[in-house]
């Protein structure tokens, strides 16, 4: 059997592009889990809602960058409101209650979108339509742009966490929320802000992904499922681990789909998930603690 190097190269690029969007979705999810201890089942719907807001803003203004910014901000604000109304009252209760709450939000948002926008998928026009030649393919520059933009958003967020005043608050709260409180950090508001940031990141990825496939009310499902796998494989609550896991899993799936159909390639993710849970349940990309 000869090794199809051209296909492998193409799939590497594809894997990295999908991996970066996935990393953007998953970093919000893992952040929310790490700090709020909430498994956000509504994350996929925030992604979907972001894509729809992108569709609407793009249709009225014609500006993709405006659509991206507006969707991020609107969904972040919505996320803040959802957190205050539904999750804050559940602090200190059984974790199951937050699962039910976010699952409920997910159903409401999904059906709202179906009712509001109908079952027909919408399309987001690619903001740049150029192509370059990758072996025998015309590869769209837009895909490269998605990977770069996702990396820029994640990188910007990382810098904020590392150097910003509120970034330090978030990291302190992640490590020890009781001591963070005792240092005067308003932990309930840190929780709200983190949920809002996670929601905004999901919305941004929704807009970025929009042009690659249609925008419909159920588009969040596949992503959130994959993002959950990434969060577990990367180590629950570990931002760097999630990013590494997102790219790792997307690359594996991309390579697998050289030989099997893409829908079968998804199996690879689950195999990685099961192996991780069996042999390294704290996550593949978690540094071994000293």
């Amino acid at each position, binding site marked *: 059997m000869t090794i199809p190097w051209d296909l492998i190269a193409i799939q590497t690029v594809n894997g990295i592009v999908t991996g970066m969007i996935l990393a953007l979705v998953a970093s919000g999810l893992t952040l929310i889990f790490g700090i709020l201890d909430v498994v956000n089942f509504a994350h996929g719907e925030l992604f979907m809602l972001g894509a729809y807001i992108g569709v609407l803003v793009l249709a009225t203004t014609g500006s993709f960058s405006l659509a991206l910014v507006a969707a991020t901000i609107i969904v972040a604000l919505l996320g803040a409101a959802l957190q205050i109304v539904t999750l804050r009252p559940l602090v200190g209760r059984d974790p199951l209650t937050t699962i039910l709450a976010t699952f409920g939000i997910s159903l409401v948002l999904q059906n709202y979108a179906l009712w509001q926008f109908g079952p027909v998928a919408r399309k987001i026009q690619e903001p740049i339509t150029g192509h370059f030649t990758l072996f025998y393919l015309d590869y769209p520059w837009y895909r490269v742009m998605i990977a770069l933009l996702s990396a820029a958003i994640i990188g910007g967020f990382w810098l904020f966490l590392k150097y910003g*005043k509120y970034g*330090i608050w978030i990291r*302190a709260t992640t490590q020890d929320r*009781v*001591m*963070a*409180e*005792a240092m*005067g950090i308003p932990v309930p508001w840190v929780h709200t802000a983190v949920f809002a940031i996670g929601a905004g990141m999901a919305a941004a990825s929704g807009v970025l992904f929009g042009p690659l496939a249609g925008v419909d009310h159920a588009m969040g499902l596949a992503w959130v499922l994959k993002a959950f796998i990434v969060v577990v494989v990367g180590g629950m609550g570990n931002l760097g681990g999630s990013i590494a896991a997102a790219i790792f899993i997307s690359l594996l799936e991309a390579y697998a789909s050289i030989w099997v159909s893409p829908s079968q390639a998804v199996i690879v993710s689950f195999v990685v998930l099961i192996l991780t849970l069996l042999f390294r349940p704290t996550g593949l990309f978690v540094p071994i603690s000293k």
Partner: protein
Amino acid sequence: MSPPEPFVEPLVEVENLHAYYGKSHILHGVSLSVGKGEVVGLLGRNGVGKSTTLKSIIGLVATRQGRVLFGGRVVTGMPTHKLARIGIAYVPEDRRIFRLLTITENLRTGLDRNGVSESRRRQLLDRVYTYFPVLAERRNQPGGTLSGGEQQMLAIARAMMLEPKIILLDEPTEGLMPRMVSQIRQIIDVLHRDGVAILLVEQNVPLTLEASHRVYFMEKGEVRHHAVASELDVNNPVIHQFLGV
């Protein structure tokens, strides 16, 4: 040791405080007071509720009955982060430094407040770095790499960033080498000179008697006795009664 100051204006007053962990009743009506700038010791055997008293004051343990006053104002039930902002700092027994944050970042958690000017920030940082040169040397290292004694210093330095009126200090010398213990002792004096009140929970009786103006003795979740520290010594029957095995 400075003379007792029985008539100082009260800063923290705890009145008949009852607290529970789940269903177990830990505090059965604790009453005590700490004056402005006063160092007060809280002594007693293990498990009598000394740490719980501190946690109740800072709002980390919910109280069912009784109240806490700070500067004459009732603060019972106020969220912990607000208590920290109005001047109550807490240094827990297990130090709880943010292990993955650098030393500077640990300090910044208390420093990044509204209304702290850039020059004031620098002043506060310079001051703790002068008191604790070892922290200055390692300011960009993660807190988790410090030794136990250094972590204790960081925990106290971090509390100082809040410019508190009182520090609730829970067993600061526990598990430390004698050299570190005497450093902690000096820090208590420095804080006292700066006019910061301290409510000190300690197992080290000689240190407590030496550093404090007054001491309270707790037993079974209640304050049972109260004395001027300079009138007691380690052989006093009261010490035996409340601390002897």
